[in-house]
């Protein structure tokens, strides 16, 4: 069994109940073809980097599941014949997944959550730190973009500017030929 992940972009003009309907339908396709769903995420309506089907926005849905290659084939076939799916991308995440181990881990997590819930009701034990431990996996990843986003842009931009200023006096013609789009003011 392998672990896969499919991101699909749905028509953003669909009402919410239809989105849920489609999501359920694809979920059932996965289940009925011997797959196991790990999670389904709705990222909401996002701006596309380029137009797809003459639309600027798209509704992103992520399916994370375990199954065989035949399952992926079938799921992708379903995506293709559904007109409201504007784009899709399937990626293999893991080559060899033990489904039992996965289920056990999921169950443990659910149990921990249940314990945490009961602990929260009756306050004051060590177990209350467990949910905090379960989450950090996502914590740094989410927090990171804001912190690091600007640094590399500044660095590369500076690098390019210096590169340009070095090139332009001595080898203006060559610079122009090799990188015309980097110097819009000369064109």
């Amino acid at each position: 069994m392998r672990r896969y992940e499919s991101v699909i972009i749905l028509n953003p003009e669909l009402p919410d109940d239809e989105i849920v309907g489609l999501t359920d339908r694809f979920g059932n396709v996965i289940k009925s073809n011997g797959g196991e769903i790990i999670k389904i995420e709705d990222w909401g309506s996002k701006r596309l980097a380029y137009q797809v089907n003459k639309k600027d926005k798209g509704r992103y849905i992520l399916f994370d599941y375990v199954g065989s290659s035949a399952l992926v084939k079938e799921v992708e076939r379903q995506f293709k014949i559904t007109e409201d799916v504007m784009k899709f991308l399937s990626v293999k995440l893991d080559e060899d997944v033990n489904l039992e181990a996965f289920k056990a881990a999921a169950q443990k997590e659910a149990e921990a959550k249940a314990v945490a819930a009961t602990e929260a009701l009756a306050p004051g034990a060590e177990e209350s730190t467990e949910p905090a431990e379960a989450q950090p996996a996502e914590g740094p990843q989410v927090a990171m973009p804001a912190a690091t986003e600007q640094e590399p842009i500044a660095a590369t931009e500076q690098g390019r500017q210096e590169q340009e200023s070095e090139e332009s006096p001595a080898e203006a013609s060559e610079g122009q030929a090799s990188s015309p789009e980097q110097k819009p003011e000369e064109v």
Partner: protein
Amino acid sequence: MAKPQRRRPFPRSKVCRFCADPSIRMDYKEPNILRAFITERGKIIPRRISGNCAKHQRQLTACIKRARNIALLPFTVPRR
């Protein structure tokens, strides 16, 4: 006759940012991280400028291309 001038190496960041900070996870679903490694025209910034190590540049390239495929990153940014 113009002598071929030795090109001075342009400044580059020497350390691979993904090696320096292992907490950064490269993922095609995180366009904000990837955006740091493409030009304003949407091209992938070469390793010699970004300073990435070969391994991470390879991973990065794959991630950027995937992100392009699901419209999280542009293939090109047209000049207006």
